[in-house]
């Protein structure tokens, strides 16, 4: 039996379950770096020219594909390898995720030095993207099993790390680039190597300390429910069966539209606030606005998902979608009034609910389908993120371009998109209200839980 085998990770008596969230956080704080990849965008477009882009340098749209590929492969690998993750357990998955994510940086470093963009696409986009997907789902089912009494708080803590990873990633990347920068180099290549090594070690720390609970373990003083209550099932549904239920696809739409709306604002936050409040908000303030949104994105993940342990998941999503729709309609209003304070407050709440949507969904899935294969089901649901990652920015950017070409400016550039986002959230709200308990005929009937 090898060190990375699932059987070796079964916790003995007396093991504190509070050791598992740091293991999950070590992985999520690392892979959250993807949100900070934009700090490399400009330096990568000056890889040859150093101080300014040379004719042979890569363009911004070419470089932007690195992030898009990484997000696509995050969703794809989470969906494809979800069952494998459940079978081999969190330690091996986290180790493979560390190899992929760290290795992706190393491959990309060679892409920078040899000026081969395809190598960076392969390294950070494909290999690193698979590391993102495996790392993202690896601790989820483990945490749900350790915290059956508070699954929302537990998964929220880990997924909060994904938001927090952006803070570490951006500051660390800038620090490294400044350290390695010379008159003949932007320092990106060496920074990639350093980041690869640092994140590999950090994720392996999580892999070493993670444990799964024994089959008969339960928290002291907690009794598992003996019969289904509301949306919470006492049975277990396997991943392949879960995707045949309407509940899975209703949640897919809910997640997709909630993320589409949020990511549209996140991606365009800096130019949006400057264009809606011309003269009032300049570039440094816009940068601070983006930083504020990141803080709410991270905080919302923990606060909303913890709240869902008390209110129920469906109720929390009603808040996200209903309040979200109202707040999106308030954005043009704040612009017309010239009130940047209302705009900032509204966007901050929206982004907190965007993060909350990500963090609450594993617990929602656990309620509906049981804990047995929640990691694999979560992996398949994350394809909604891949779709939303394209849909949100495309809607905001293309509608803005269309309106700009027709002579619109300021608030008018964004108002129709905000109403459209509100409409998407209303559709999501209807889907969420349609979620009913999963029919028992879908539940796993075998004697032993499938891994």
């Amino acid at each position, binding site marked *: 039996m090898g060190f990375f085998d699932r059987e070796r990770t079964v916790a003995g008596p007396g093991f504190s379950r509070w050791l598992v969230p*740091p293991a999950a*956080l070590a992985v999520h704080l690392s892979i959250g770096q993807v949100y900070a990849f934009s700090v490399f965008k400009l330096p990568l477009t000056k890889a040859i020219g150093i101080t300014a882009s040379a004719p042979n340098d890569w363009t911004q749209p070419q470089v932007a594909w690195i992030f898009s590929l990484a997000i696509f492969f995050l969703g794809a690998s989470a969906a494809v390898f979800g069952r494998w993750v459940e079978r081999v357990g969190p330690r091996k998955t986290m180790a493979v995720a560390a190899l992929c994510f760290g290795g992706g940086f190393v491959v990309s470093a060679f892409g920078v030095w040899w000026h081969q963009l395809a190598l960076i696409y392969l390294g950070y986009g494909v290999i690193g993207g698979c590391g993102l997907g495996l790392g993202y789902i690896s601790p989820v089912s483990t945490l749900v099993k350790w915290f059956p009494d508070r699954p929302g708080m537990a998964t929220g803590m880990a997924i909060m*790390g994904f938001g927090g*990873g952006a803070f570490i*990633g951006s*500051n660390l990347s800038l620090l490294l680039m400044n350290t390695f920068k010379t008159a003949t180099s932007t320092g990106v290549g060496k920074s990639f190597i350093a980041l690869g090594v640092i994140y590999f070690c950090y994720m392996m*720390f999580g892999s070493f300390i993670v444990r799964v609970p024994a089959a008969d373990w339960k928290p002291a003083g907690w009794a598992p429910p003996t019969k289904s209550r509301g949306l919470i099932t006492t049975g277990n549904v396997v991943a392949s069966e879960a995707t045949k239920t309407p509940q899975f696809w209703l949640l897919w739409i809910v997640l997709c539209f909630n993320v589409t709306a949020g990511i549209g604002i996140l991606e365009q936050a800096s130019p949006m606030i400057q264009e809606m409040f011309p003269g009032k908000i300049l570039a440094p303030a816009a940068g*601070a606005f983006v930083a*504020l949104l990141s*803080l709410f994105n991270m905080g919302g993940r923990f606060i909303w998902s913890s709240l869902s342990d008390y209110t129920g998941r469906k109720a929390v999503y009603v808040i996200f979608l209903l309040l979200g729709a109202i707040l999106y309609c308030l954005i043009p209003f704040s612009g017309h009034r010239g009130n940047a304070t209302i705009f900032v407050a509204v966007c901050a709440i929206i982004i907190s609910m965007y993060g909350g949507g990500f963090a609450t969904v594993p617990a929602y899935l656990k309620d509906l389908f049981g804990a047995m294969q929640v990691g694999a089901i979560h992996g398949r649901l994350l394809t909604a993120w891949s779709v939303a990652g394209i849909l949100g920015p495309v809607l905001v950017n293309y509608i803005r371009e269309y309106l700009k070409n027709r002579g619109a400016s300021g608030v008018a550039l964004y108002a129709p998109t905000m109403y459209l986002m509100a409409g998407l959230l209303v559709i999501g709200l209807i889907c969420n209200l349609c979620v009913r308990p999963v029919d028992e005929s879908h539940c796993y009937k075998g004697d032993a839980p499938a891994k």
Partner: protein
Amino acid sequence: MANENHASSNGAMLFISWIVVGVPLVWGVYNTILKLPALFR
């Protein structure tokens, strides 16, 4: 005695693990908060 040793090593591991993840997170958040005053000027 064995249980006491186990409990203390468990506690130490718990402390170290939370420090390992907590310090970088606080460092990142702190550096981000430093950027916020520009929004309120």
